[in-house]
């Protein structure tokens, strides 16, 4: 119940933050999709405004409430003046239902397996960095931070996101909601990432409708199957790649706006709503997912080049305006994005080591989620080829009938080029896989249009039902496989870890103490990093900082262990005196034992 209530609160806050802004900046031709676009504009508004205020020295504790107040006033304005944009057709109502299904589907494990809002992951440790950064920015701004305290190893994650990869926007999103809901960032992490993923599906649907110019239930269902419950994407979601998930929505929104912009007949020498909105989206990407900026902009440049060749100056000027505006909105974060992007290129192209389990290169059937890429055996190559030909053929069929062909082709060529590069020229399965997940929205939209065209052409009800049935079966089966893997084998920030908050708040314990990983050969990184997270107000000596600090302190300091883990290998921690304890942990002075041989 707690999880559901939190989910509802977050969704409400997103809509309050976004509806008002949408009523002002969303172009008229897209007002009918306000309900699907507004949470994204709200997110963008939150990020852009918060980054400005943080750069000016405000903490999120100071900035969140004024930003929310302004959003609320705009929301009221929207309710009073622009009620029309909140009307739904039958199809859009279906999209809303399917969106809700996606959301509930993905938070189901948290509701029924865990029972409370927390962080869940299939193994990726990224959530601790986002949670730490989110909590950090509540009391600090992005400049002038002190990350040097050797007793607080958790602060290294915040340092990494703020001063190295410049993912301010991602951390700020957590800070914003944490302040408004009076929670900590870890509590809202999984819920929020699930919400963003669910809200991306309507954008894919809108994209398909805009480029096909027909609003059909079939498109809504097909995009639901190929994006909403796409097992390849669910793998990314369940591994808590927050930046990637939110970028998926932003790039889809970018393309939605671009498609409509290029179709709309406007005077181009004036700035208009499209320019401002697109500029804001790109500017927000520079801090939410910096490496995504060029992924969004390069295809635009390709398109711009085609317009230059065909002497369509009007469209070229539109692209130039958007890019210039995205720089002007925040030139500093544009610069940090560029620095980070160059680093990423070097890392991706020069370094050989990939810190992730091997994932085979996905074929289209796997990319669209009909066959599970991560948990099913590899199909024989013949099957892959046949399926690829069929799927690409259907996509091509869809491509033939869409508007803005050149624009879509620019994006498609860009993504296909990346896939080719990282499959054949500079093989890197991880970048290949990421490219698949970045581009699925586009292929999902085009494929859905192709399938719809096929259905419309053949119009045999039984065949349509049969084909739909197979597709639903395959997608659901594949999605369920991934979801049950998540439900059964997830790591979570559980009650024992959360109980460390009691120790963190204990004012009587002021001196440093040692964590048990100093003695044990502890490989459970998950427990270690989250222990550091919850003890961030205490001075702790851990495996991470032991070597730096040991010359100042001896091993007679108190030791913290989990009650169910007082021995490891041949070592046993025996307590002489307990200073503090709760149901899960104990802290006290121990009989001397040697430290881990790794130190």
């Amino acid at each position, binding site marked *: 119940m707690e999880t559901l209530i939190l989910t509802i609160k977050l969704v409400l806050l997103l809509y309050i933050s976004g509806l008002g802004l949408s009523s002002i900046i969303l172009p008229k031709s897209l007002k009918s999709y306000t309900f699907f676009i507004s949470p994204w504009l709200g997110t963008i508004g939150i990020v852009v405004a918060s980054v*400005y*205020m943080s*750069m*000016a*020295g*405000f903490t999120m504790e100071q900035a969140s409430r004024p930003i929310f107040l302004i959003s609320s006033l705009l929301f009221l304005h929207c309710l009073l003046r622009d009620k029309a944009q909140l009307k739904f057709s039958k199809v859009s109502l279906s999209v809303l239902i399917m969106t809700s299904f996606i959301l509930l589907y993905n938070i189901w494990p948290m509701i029924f397996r865990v029972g409370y809002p927390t962080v869940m992951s299939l193994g990726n440790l990224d959530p601790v960095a986002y949670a730490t950064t989110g909590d950090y920015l509540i009391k600090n701004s992005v*400049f*002038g*931070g*002190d*990350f*040097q305290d050797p007793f607080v190893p958790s602060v290294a994650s915040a340092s990494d996101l703020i*001063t190295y990869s410049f993912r301010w926007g991602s951390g700020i999103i957590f800070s914003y909601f944490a302040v408004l809901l009076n929670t900590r960032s870890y509590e809202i992490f999984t819920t929020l990432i699930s919400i963003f993923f669910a809200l991306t599906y309507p954008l894919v649907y809108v994209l398909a409708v805009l480029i096909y110019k027909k609003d059909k239930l079939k498109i809504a269902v097909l995009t639901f199957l190929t994006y909403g419950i796409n097992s390849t994407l669910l793998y990314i979601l369940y591994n808590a790649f927050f930046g990637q998930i939110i970028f998926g929505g932003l790039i889809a929104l970018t393309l939605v706006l671009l498609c409509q912009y290029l179709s709309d007949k406007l005077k181009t020498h004036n700035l208009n709503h499209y320019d401002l909105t697109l500029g804001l989206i790109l500017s927000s990407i520079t801090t939410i997912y910096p490496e995504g900026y060029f992924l969004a902009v390069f295809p635009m440049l390709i398109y711009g080049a085609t317009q230059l060749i065909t002497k369509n100056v009007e469209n070229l000027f539109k692209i130039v305006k958007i890019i210039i505006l995205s*720089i*002007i*909105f*925040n*030139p*500093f974060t*544009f*610069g*940090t994005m*560029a*620095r980070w992007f160059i680093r990423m290129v070097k890392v991706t192209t020069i370094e050989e080591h990939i810190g992730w389990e091997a994932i085979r290169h996905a074929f289209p059937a796997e990319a669209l989620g009909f066959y599970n890429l991560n948990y099913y055996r590899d199909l024989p190559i013949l099957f892959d080829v046949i399926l690829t030909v069929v799927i690409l053929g259907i996509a091509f069929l869809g491509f033939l009938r869409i508007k803005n062909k050149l624009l879509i082709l620019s994006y498609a060529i860009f993504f296909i080029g990346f896939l080719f590069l990282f499959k054949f020229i500079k093989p890197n399965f991880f970048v290949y896989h990421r490219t698949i997940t970045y581009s699925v929205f586009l292929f999902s939209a085009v494929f859905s249009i192709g399938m719809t065209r096929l259905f419309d052409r053949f119009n045999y009800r039984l065949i349509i039902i049969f084909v739909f049935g197979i597709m639903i079966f395959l997608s659901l089966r594949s999605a369920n496989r991934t979801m049950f893997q998540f439900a059964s084998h997830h790591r979570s920030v559980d009650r024992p870890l959360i109980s460390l908050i009691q120790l963190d708040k204990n004012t009587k314990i002021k001196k440093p103490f040692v964590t048990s990983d100093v003695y044990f050969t502890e490989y459970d990184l998950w427990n270690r990093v989250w222990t550091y997270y919850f003890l961030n107000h205490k001075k702790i000596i851990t495996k991470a900082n032991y070597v730096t600090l040991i010359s100042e302190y001896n091993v007679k300091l108190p030791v913290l262990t989990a009650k169910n883990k007082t021995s490891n290998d041949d070592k046993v921690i025996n307590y002489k005196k307990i200073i503090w304890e709760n149901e899960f942990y104990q802290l006290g002075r121990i009989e001397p034992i040697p430290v881990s041989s790794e130190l």
Partner: protein
Amino acid sequence: MVELIFYTGALYFSLFFLGFGITTLILPKNLSKFSLWLSPATLVVFLSVFLTILSLVGIPLKYVTPVIFVLLTLTTIYSYLFKNNRLKINYLIDGLLFIVILTSIFINLAPLRHARFLTSVSLGNTDALVYASVPDYLVGRSIADNLLIKPEKVNDDPTGIMNMIVSGFRWGSPAVIAFFESLLSLQGYQIAYIFPVIIFALTIPLGYILFSLFYRPSHYGALIIAFMTAFNADLLYMLYHNFTGQVFFWLLQSYLYVFVIAHFKLLSTDKTYKSVNEILIGIIIASVFLSYHEGGIFIIFPLVFYICVTFILHQRYFRFIESLLKILSTAFIISVPAIFHAIKLDIAQASNIGKPIGWALFREQTPFAYPFEFFGFHSMHNYPPLSLFLSIILSILTLIIFCFGIKNSKMKVMTFGIVIIYGIFIFWSTIFAPNFFVYNRTITFSLPILIIFLSIGLVSILNKLKKFKFLLLTSLLLLVIYNGVLMNKRFIRESKIVGRDLISISELSKNTNISGPIFLDGFYSGKINYWRDIWLEYFLYPKLRTVYTSNQIFFNVPTETSLILQSKDMLTSPARIHLENIVWENSFYRLGNVCISDNCLTTSNTDYSRINFNSNCCEDMLLLEGWDVSEPEGRWANAKVTTIRLISKSSPTTLTYTARTLEKPQHVKIYMDEILIGEDDLEEEFLTYRHKIQPSYNKKTIHHLRFEFENQYSPVEIGLSLDNRKLSAAFKEIGID
């Protein structure tokens, strides 16, 4: 001298040449006749905004400058050749303005004319340093680089760069200076003073343009505005103290009002009027927040006031509100982090108004300028205040003329908006929370505009007078000119200059055999020559770090192997020390190790057995604890226990010292190497005291002497002077034979 004339001329010319193209292409029609004098300001606005954007992206300005120079040149050529834009010149008025501008530049560069080379000069404020160091930084690096500096270095801020960029968000003004620095291949210290001098001079014609917009063109108006601005002692005081940000603000503020008035006039009269002027005005506002955010409220308030009141009075002017929203949105988009930062910093500064003011009183009595004083008819920087009665009468007269000017102003709502906001700050800084410095800054922010209204009042009166017109005008202007000239003479007399000695230290930074840190000789004397110390740091940083009293907490204390930089000019050198192992020297400085260890002192050939204070080369090495700085009459012991060491080559038999006390009684015990060798009662005049040293004490070579005083006296308590130090005795000489 040639260099000074050449670069001043080049700067002046390039401001017009590079600004002409964009000015003539963007000016609304009703301002085209002023394109000559608007060109430099237009250039400054565009450079401040776009260079800041590029520097925030991370691009050093040295790469950007050639590109922008070419683009601006092409724009000028395009405007002149293809658009046939030409300057419209009124030879009488523009000629007069030109002469006054040249005169202003000429007199304000007086100290540089005397020095005969390009350098920085100041009446005392050390802000000159940051306006030299930050442009240097931006030429080779960027604002983004500085914002990204790791926090452990935040508190150590060599040459004040981080204070300006990270704490102050003052980006636009140094970016503009950096552009010209790069263009003309100068260094920051060479342009930091002459650039604001030129900018100040170019504010004068903007004042006349505003005069003609608020009132009407007038020869008298041009004369009054020009001289009252160019020779205003309060404005000159700020210029001479290197408040460069404020000088920029004067230019930008005047320029903004010109555009605002022209734009809203057209908006109200021409229903078909559509232009990009909202964007331009927004860019100007953005440039204010990027260059000198403290002035932001003084331009936003009058604008908002004008729009809202006009809308209330004439409700059909809804397009005014729309226009205002576009203006503010543009400014917001371009400079929003600076705007937020400005709000935060200004609130913090305002709440600290009651805290101690880090500035000397302008004058002991009444450090607040009366209206007739701040308009230049009398100067608080040159004279004590007149009697209260006279001051009130003259102020009332001045204010009557000022009110007359407001009454005759065409844009009354705008005028009221300006007067109200400045009035609020004046009231706040005089009555509500008296602070002479805030008051002075409020006045000096507003003076270029307030002078316009006073001039309107004066011209209106002169137009009504049939007799004595010329006499009145001449006497008023002569008063202003006289006070301005006096201010200038004071500047020449009291200015601190970055002289050739300081510039010569840059040779040291090119020496690849030397690595820092380098300690300045002030460590050993306790004397601070702050101007010298900060400029030494400027010329050596970043190649070499210098350590002096202000930044010593970031470094270890100097040892005998530390490199000490000593001035060869004993008048300016704070310390009397002897350097050995000289590793570098030029005509002004030497760099070496100070002979301070026992071993060095005992093996040195220099005689360290006696100190004659102020004529001894090395007293600061021998004095240990309890000593004040050196003074002409000797050296005061400022503790109850003072220690000194002396070195004897042979067995000493006598200790002699010449000393006096401030007041009797003053009993002193003298110990040598912890053994009491004598006691004296000091007199109030200098007397020499002798004590025999027993033979058994003389085995050591280094001898530690300790003087233990019974009492300490303070000159202020005795009524001798305002000196509030606690002093024991003054010494002229101490020696062992």
